[in-house]
């Protein structure tokens, strides 16, 4: 649902990755404060080395747009992310190609909201916030197991995972507006 997300049912999670157990990358433990992953319930983790190689090679063989940085986003069971934005100012990206690799596909989801008249190109310089459960939700999305979705990360969004499973998503950065990526798809030029 542009401008918030669109599904890519034809882009499948590589079988080799799905069948490979998750082993946390040692880079996640390189900060003695424990804050190297960003937050407690919503964490930016390193992609396991074998997953990284499998996915990078696969995406480079499948899609025409540049394969950006890969990050593993972990939302812990019974947890959420704050409302946040990841844009070109502090993240060098405008949208993300996401695969959910584990979690409760039915009951965890992402929501987008607005705070009114704000320039979404600079949302990511304004910081995240946890409160305001009564925000007007503009869109809500549940991932499909084994398939990719492109998320607009510049609009305010949050992950809700009040389930009994950690939600893990591998996320590839794209520094192009989601509308342009959608057009590339519609022209049949997204896949090699």
């Amino acid at each position, binding site marked *: 649902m542009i401008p918030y997300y669109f599904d890519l049912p034809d882009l499948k999670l590589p079988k080799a990755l799905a069948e490979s157990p998750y*082993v946390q990358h040692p880079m996640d433990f390189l900060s003695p404060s424990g*804050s*190297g992953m*960003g937050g407690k319930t*919503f964490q930016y983790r390193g*992609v396991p080395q074998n997953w*990284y190689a499998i996915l990078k090679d696969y995406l480079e063989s499948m899609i025409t747009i540049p394969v950006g940085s890969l990050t593993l986003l972990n939302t812990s069971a019974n947890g959420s992310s704050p409302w946040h934005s990841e844009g*070109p100012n502090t*993240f*060098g990206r405008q949208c993300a190609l996401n695969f959910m690799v584990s979690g409760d596909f039915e009951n965890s989801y992402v929501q987008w909201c607005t705070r009114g008249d704000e320039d979404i190109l600079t949302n990511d310089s304004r910081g995240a916030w946890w409160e305001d459960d009564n925000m007007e939700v503009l869109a809500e999305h549940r991932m499909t197991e084994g398939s990719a979705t492109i998320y607009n990360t510049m609009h305010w969004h949050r992950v809700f995972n009040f389930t009994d499973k950690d939600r893990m998503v591998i996320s590839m950065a794209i520094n192009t507006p989601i509308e342009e990526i959608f057009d590339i798809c519609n022209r049949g030029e997204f896949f090699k």
Partner: protein
Amino acid sequence: MFNSINFSPLLLHDKFFPVWSIDVPYIKSFDTSLLQENKWIVDQPRNILHDYDHVPEQLRFWYKKTNCCEEIQNVYTVFNETSVLNFFDNLMHNKDNAKILDQLYQYNRHQSYKKPSRWLRSKIECETSIVKDISGMSIKEHVDTRIYLGTFVCNLKDNTSSTKFLKCNTYGPTEKGTGVFWLNDNSTLHSIDHFSDDERLIAYTQIRFKVLD
């Protein structure tokens, strides 16, 4: 003296590779014998890795920051947030470096910031650690997660190993008081292997965006 770091491109033939060699005068005269053997933190891995089976042997040790002498405190001061922001402004004063930054982060589309430190102030946190690696310490190639802006690694002694950058198959310098600074990007895929019997001693500063809490 605490506020001095000299930067030069790690790759002289590629001025747009976002890795710089650093030269830190204060560290050149730092006496590593001031580091006390009983102040290296021993992991309690089960507390960290509570939900995973794999518990690696501890090969990296962090130095306790409490009750350090002035000379050791000064190491942290060299790389504290105020210093890092100043270094960053100096580094980005060079037009080629500013171009690198602009390609990675389009932070100044409205010309809101006169210098990068104005943009980064209140958005980043700097965590500096004194680190000891022992033989076997190895972190395979990886790109830092996207909450990282960049990282400093500075040798506290003449080390025998250093960070490897895979794109160009190049290592950072190993001499005391030198090191590397890199900006986080796909091109700065890096790794570290320390397999010799000596201890590797570094100051290690992670610069992260404070985005979530």
